[in-house]
C-alpha cells in the first residue's frame, strides 16, 4: 500500500495493517512461537475439555443446571445439525460435530473478550486444519460407502453424455477443491475482517484525538461504533461456528447418499 501514509502520531499506528496480526512473544524467554494466539488456543482446548468432563461428572436423570447446559449444546448440534442434515445416521457424527461447533465457537469468542480481543482463527493455519479434517472425513466416508465407485458417484452427475466433458471438471473442482478451501477461508476471513474492523474504529478514535483535540466528539462516535460492531461480531462468531458445522454435515450427507 505505497499510496497510503501511515499516521504514526505518538505511537497510534493507523490504519491497521496485516502486521497487526503478527503478535509478539508473551514471555521474554518463551520463544517466538508463544504468543497470545498460542495461549488462547491452549485455553480454548483446556476450557472445552474441562467443561464437558465436569458437566457430565455425576449425570442425574433430572439434570442440574450445568448438565442441562452441556446437554443443550450437544442436543442442539445433534438434533438441528446432525439429524436434520444427515438423517438417522447423523447421530454417529454428532460427537465430532459438537466438538467442532463448540471449539470454533470458543476460538471465535476470544475475538470480543477483553484482554484477548483476537481470535486464533484470524491466523489461517487453524481454519485450514479444521477444514482439512472435515475434508478427509467426507472423502473417507465416500470411499468407505461406495468403494472405488465413489469417484464416479461424486464426479459424474446424471446428465446427457455430451456435456459431461464440461461437467466433470466442474464437479471435481467444486467437490474436491472449492469445498475445503471455502470452509477454511470463510472462517478465517470472517474473523480477520471482524478484527480489522474493530481495530480501524478503535485506533481511528485514538488517532483522531492525537491529531486534533477538537475531534474528540468524533472519536467518541468512533468508539460507539466499535461497541456496535462488537455486537455484530458476536452474531458473526455464532453464525460462522454454525455454518462450518452445518456445511460439514451437508458434505457428509452428500458422501453417504445413495446413488443418483
Amino acid at each position, binding site marked *: *500500500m505505497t499510496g497510503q501514509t501511515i499516521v504514526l502520531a505518538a505511537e497510534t499506528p493507523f490504519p491497521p495493517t496485516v502486521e497487526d496480526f503478527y503478535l509478539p512473544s508473551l514471555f521474554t524467554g518463551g520463544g517466538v512461537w508463544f504468543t497470545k494466539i498460542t495461549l488462547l488456543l491452549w485455553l480454548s482446548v483446556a476450557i472445552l475439555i474441562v467443561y464437558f468432563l465436569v458437566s457430565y461428572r455425576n449425570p442425574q436423570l433430572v439434570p442440574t443446571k450445568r448438565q442441562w447446559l452441556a446437554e443443550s449444546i450437544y442436543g442442539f448440534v445433534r438434533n438441528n445439525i446432525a439429524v436434520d442434515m444427515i438423517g438417522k445416521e447423523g447421530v454417529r457424527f454428532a460427537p465430532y460435530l459438537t466438538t467442532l461447533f463448540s471449539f470454533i465457537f470458543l476460538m471465535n469468542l476470544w475475538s470480543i473478550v477483553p484482554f484477548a480481543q483476537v481470535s486464533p482463527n484470524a491466523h489461517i493455519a487453524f481454519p485450514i486444519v479444521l477444514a482439512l479434517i472435515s475434508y478427509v472425513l467426507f472423502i473417507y466416508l465416500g470411499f468407505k460407502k461406495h468403494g472405488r465407485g465413489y469417484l464416479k458417484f461424486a464426479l459424474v452427475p446424471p446428465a446427457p453424455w455430451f456435456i459431461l466433458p464440461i461437467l466433470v471438471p466442474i464437479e471435481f473442482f467444486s467437490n474436491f477443491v472449492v469445498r475445503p478451501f471455502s470452509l477454511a477461508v470463510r472462517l478465517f*476471513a*470472517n474473523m480477520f475482517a471482524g478484527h480489522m474492523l474493530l481495530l480501524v474504529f478503535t485506533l481511528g478514535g485514538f488517532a483522531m484525538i492525537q491529531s486534533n483535540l477538537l475531534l474528540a466528539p468524533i472519536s467518541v462516535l468512533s468508539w460507539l461504533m466499535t461497541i456496535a460492531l462488537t455486537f455484530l461480531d458476536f452474531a458473526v462468531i455464532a453464525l460462522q461456528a454454525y455454518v462450518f458445522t452445518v456445511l460439514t454435515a451437508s458434505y457428509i450427507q452428500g458422501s453417504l447418499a445413495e446413488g443418483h
Partner: protein
Amino acid sequence: MLLAEVVGSTAAIGYGLAAIGPGIGVGLIFAAYIQSTARQPESARITQPFMWIGFAVVEVLALLAIAFGFIWQGTLS
C-alpha cells in the same frame, strides 16, 4: 501521453467492485426467506438452515475479496 493519472491502491477499487455481487446476493436470500415465511409461516423453521447456509456461501465471496485485497496489492502507474 497520459490523459488522466490515478495513483494509489487498485485493491481498494477492486474490493468496492467485488462487494456489489455479494451485496445483491445476500439481499436476494433474505428477501426470499421473508417472502416465503410471509406466504407460509409454518415453513420458517424448515427453510431457516438453508438461509444460513446460502448466506454464508454468498458472503464468502465478499470475504475472499477482503483477504485477496491484501494479497494482490497493486498500484496504478
